[in-house]
């Protein structure tokens, strides 16, 4: 278990900048998730930490020690690959023990370690099988066993769940989290799945096009996204990004949402952060999670929450709740309603907005204002 520091990491292929100066540092025992759309450089970054790719500029430190020029085997890391990368010619036992064998660990010690790890992962009955004889979930466990058995200082996971079917993916996700809690290991985990990122991480790094957009706890990333990209990328359904104009009338502020061919809608704002006031009379983008728009009005008062009226365009019952696409000033916004909501498409409904969850973005730069 060790801390990990990435200091101004850059990667260039000729003229092409793949990574444009990444700074991340995590303490020992943290679970760092690198998340972003494909091509954002997250896998390249992971390979650089592993030593499978060279660093053009910047330093990688593991436990305070610079490892840029160390061979992968000397960095004391273990990696779980997307394809599991199990050696097809070896049994499960040999797969798990291969790393120790290469490091010339004596045989009795190897067997003891394999036995312990396979028991932890509940694969002790599979030890003599070949990878081809295993199911996807079992292969995944063997791949993790191969990483665990070495007790490395950092675990690297490269989209380890993306080849599993939906149900198994959720189960393995929980297992990985349990494993992290039990071992207290430092983990760097790459995924493009924002739910995996939210559920597993103690720290999330959201990347796009070789840049680190935001580094923070899952709660920070979710509630205070640094910009509209992070806001839209994290969370399902996506955060509503509502363009409008901030107006003042009779001492009260409101956001006017308008679009062509529709009557403008008004959201009354009893209070706004100071930074937002600078946008008075100008365009601004309001970011509102679907769960901050609800049909729970509590007898009409909505305890100080502004209430809007909107036409329901579509409802999608998911079971635990009902998603509804509403038309607000001609713009589509998604709301998370009660599961027993009786609203139907085409009906006009009244919805309360939780202003404490409201964030503001500059429409030009996309950066969060408040």
């Amino acid at each position, binding site marked *: 278990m060790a801390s990990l520091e990435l200091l101004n990491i850059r990667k260039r292929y000729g003229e092409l900048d793949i990574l444009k100066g990444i700074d991340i540092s995590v303490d020992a025992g943290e679970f760092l998730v690198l998340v972003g759309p494909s091509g954002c450089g997250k896998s390249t970054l992971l390979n650089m930490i*592993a030593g499978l790719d060279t660093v053009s500029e910047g330093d990688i430190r593991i436990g305070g020690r610079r490892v840029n020029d160390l061979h992968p085997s000397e960095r004391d890391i273990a*990696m779980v690959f997307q*394809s599991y990368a199990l*050696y097809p010619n070896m049994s499960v036992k040999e797969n798990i023990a291969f790393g120790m064998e*290469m*490091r010339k660990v004596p045989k009795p010690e190897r067997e003891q370690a394999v036995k312990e790890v396979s028991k932890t992962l509940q694969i002790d009955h599979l030890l003599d099988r070949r990878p081809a004889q295993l199911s996807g979930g079992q292969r995944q466990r063997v791949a993790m066993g*191969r990483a665990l058995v070495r007790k490395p200082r950092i675990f690297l996971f490269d989209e380890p769940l993306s080849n599993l079917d939906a149900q198994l993916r959720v189960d393995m996700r929980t297992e990985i989290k349990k494993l992290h809690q039990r071992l207290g290991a430092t983990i760097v985990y790459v995924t493009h799945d924002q739910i995996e990122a939210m559920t597993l991480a103690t720290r999330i790094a959201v990347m796009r096009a070789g840049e680190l957009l935001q580094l923070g706890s899952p709660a920070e990333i979710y509630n205070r996204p640094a910009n509209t990209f992070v806001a839209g990328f994290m969370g399902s359904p996506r955060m509503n990004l509502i363009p409008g104009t901030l107006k003042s009338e009779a001492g009260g502020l409101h956001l006017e949402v308008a679009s062509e061919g529709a009557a403008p809608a008004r959201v009354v704002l009893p209070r706004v952060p100071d930074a937002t006031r600078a946008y008075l009379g100008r365009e601004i983008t309001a970011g509102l999670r679907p769960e901050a728009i609800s049909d729970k009005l509590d007898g009409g008062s909505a305890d100080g929450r502004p209430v809007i009226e909107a036409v329901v365009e579509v409802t999608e019952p998911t079971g635990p709740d009902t998603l509804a696409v509403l038309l607000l000033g001609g713009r589509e916004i998604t709301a998370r309603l009660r599961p027993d909501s009786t609203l139907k498409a085409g009906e006009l409904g009244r919805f309360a907005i939780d202003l404490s969850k409201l964030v503001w973005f500059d429409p030009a730069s996309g950066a969060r204002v408040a």
Partner: protein
Amino acid sequence: MAQQWDSPQMVKGTGVRWSAFVIYGLLLFFAAIYVLPLVVMLLTSLKPLPEIYSGSIIALPQEWTVKPWIDAWGQTCVGLSCRGIKGYFWNSTKMTVAAVIISTAIGMLNGYVLTKWRFRGADLLFGLILFGCFIPFQIVLIPMATLLGKLGIASSTPGLVLVHVVYGLAFTTLYFRNYYVAFPDELIRAAMIDGAKFFSIFFRILVPNSAPIVVVTVIWQFTNIWNDFLFGASFSTGESAPMTVALNNVVNTSTGEREYNVHMAAAVIAALPTLLVYIVGGRYFVRGLMTGSVKG
């Protein structure tokens, strides 16, 4: 992946399918044409000489005999010495086994380096090696003779082994390079992280997973080297000649009467090893040529 190349399981409907008769009829016809020379050879080799001169060449022997086979192996005259073809058979065996093993091993290593330890110019180098596949035998004869002379291994089995290894490398490299290019890089990376180095990755990960392409390469190399006549005739003399050259010397003898039965027996013996290799490995040959093209 077993049944992938089968015809689609269409419902054929009822009624007589004349096309099937035509297809199978033609197939049988051509199969007969292909198998006829072999039948004639075998029949002739099992007849006494007078019967050959008097009878039809496709008639069954009236008196079956294996004497021509025994003569061919141990007594027939090859050039001036009359000790049969057995010595030359062993020459060919030694030469072929050594050349096949060496050229396959080096091709394997080349393929490994060209795909998994890529360096600047790797593709260009591969292109140049590939070029070797298209160089006709005849072009290299004279330079090769000079080289063998300088190395002091002219007219010897080691000399022929060297010639065949050099000539075969282009093909073996091509085969292994194309096989390894489809071999998952993640396995190599996993092994690197596990602490394996260049040769341990090669011997522990790559080689054990190369069975199909090894079979393809071995069959290809074995057949070509065993059947080669030009290099054998050019770079060997007398006792060191391979089987193919000896067979020519048996058949093209200018003295005495022509012992067709012995010639046929010698020819079949000369063809047996390649036949055997193909029967043993043929199943893998087709499978090996297909791997890489289909995920499985």
